[in-house]
């Protein structure tokens, strides 16, 4: 990351080799459009290129940091198609005083896609749907409620239980290392 912050194009090349395909997959999953996904990925890499100096080890792995940028920009792109929705702050981050234990930020490095799919299969269909609409669809809780025809409180409950269920399913797969600060 120091090399990237120092303007080393080789470091950017390496970052792309490591995360380019996954970044495109995430952007395409969210936007559903190859051209839009390309723009998102380009924006994300250039954003990382220009803001690498703001990356801090304590806040998580490079992978989580970078793919979160991709996610953020892809959701931004989707929401721009819906002008009635408030756009997120592109620079928003968690407050510095909130130090999140990142043991779990790196969990995905040790879990393959199949394992995560298994964990997702352990939660209910409606919980999984709510999480996917929220995380990959960029829908607000109110929009999810309207889309799925259930009360807002039910959506909130499904998101919480779904995340907790995933965590419970992933913990054994990770050897119980995910402390999460809880």
């Amino acid at each position, binding site marked *: 990351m120091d090399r990237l912050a120092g303007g080393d194009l080789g470091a950017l090349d390496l970052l792309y080799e490591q995360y380019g395909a996954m970044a495109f997959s995430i952007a395409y999953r969210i936007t559903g459009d190859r051209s839009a996904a*390309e723009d998102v990925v*380009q924006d994300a890499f250039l954003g990382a290129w*220009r803001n690498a100096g703001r990356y801090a080890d304590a806040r998580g792995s490079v992978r989580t940091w970078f793919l979160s940028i991709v996610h953020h920009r892809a959701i931004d792109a989707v929401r721009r198609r819906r002008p009635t929705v408030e756009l997120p702050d592109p620079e928003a981050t968690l407050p510095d005083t909130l130090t999140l234990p990142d043991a779990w930020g790196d*969990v995905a490095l040790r879990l393959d896609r199949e394992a*995560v799919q298994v964990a997702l299969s352990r939660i209910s269909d409606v919980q999984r749907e709510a999480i996917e609409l929220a995380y990959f669809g960029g829908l607000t809780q109110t929009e999810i409620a309207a889309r799925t025809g259930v009360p807002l409180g039910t959506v909130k409950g499904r998101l919480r239980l*779904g*995340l907790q269920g995933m965590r419970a399913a992933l913990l054994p797969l990770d050897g119980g290392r995910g402390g999460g600060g809880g």
Partner: protein
Amino acid sequence: MAEHTFAGLTCSDVAELAPAFVLGNLTPAESDAVRRHLADCPELHAEIAELNSVVPALFEAVEPVAPPAALKDRIMAAAAADLAARRAAAAPTVTGVPAPAPTRPAESPRRGLDLGALFRRPVWAAVAAAALVAAIALGAWNVQLSNQVAGLQAYRNGVVKVLDTAAQPEAQLAVLAAPEGQGPTGLAAWGADGNVALVMRDLEPTTGTEVYEAWLIAGTAAPIPIGGFQVGTDRTGTFGTNHVPLGAGVVVALTLEPTEGAKTPTLPIIALGTAHAQSS
């Protein structure tokens, strides 16, 4: 849990919003309020951290989709252009003349200047990036720095020639950069008819009989010299010749030779890049 109120939210409010907060789908106002509450109230940090810890794993649930091959080239070209623009913005200015304000660093070149259409087209990507550098730098540098302006004009003219060549069907384009990442940059293109156009900037001026020699390196074959050029105080070099196309994946390299007519390259390599066919 003790109930506190910060940023207009109670701890219960924040706990209720926590799942949507970690998934990033609160409204900006809600999200900001949660952040401000958390900044002042540690009570919920552990719960937020637990929920947040699952989120990175969601990336693994995404079905893999291969990106287009040209995307990496486009990103690298845009980053190279950004790097050159940074250097131009940081260039020394004449005493008493303030340096121009750099463009907003966090924005992509396509934003604001609306160059998205250019950058979405592989054939223009590197050329547009180079032209952007020239445009930014031309606007930024003081007119009294005539050598630099002359260099930029020469570079821009060279870019136009590369653009013309790269626009031909089945043309190939290489973005040249110093192996160490810091140093001269440029572009080379050649068409199916064998016409080659090359433009470089930030080269050290040649002296005496020195020439910059361009080489084509195909696989493990010996480098093929295709011609050389000298560079003046504008530090810009342009070059045109004709050579039988060698196909995609050929490396274009530049060396500084003591005299013209070199048969083997004199190390170090000043700049190099790999040629890629341009798809429409």
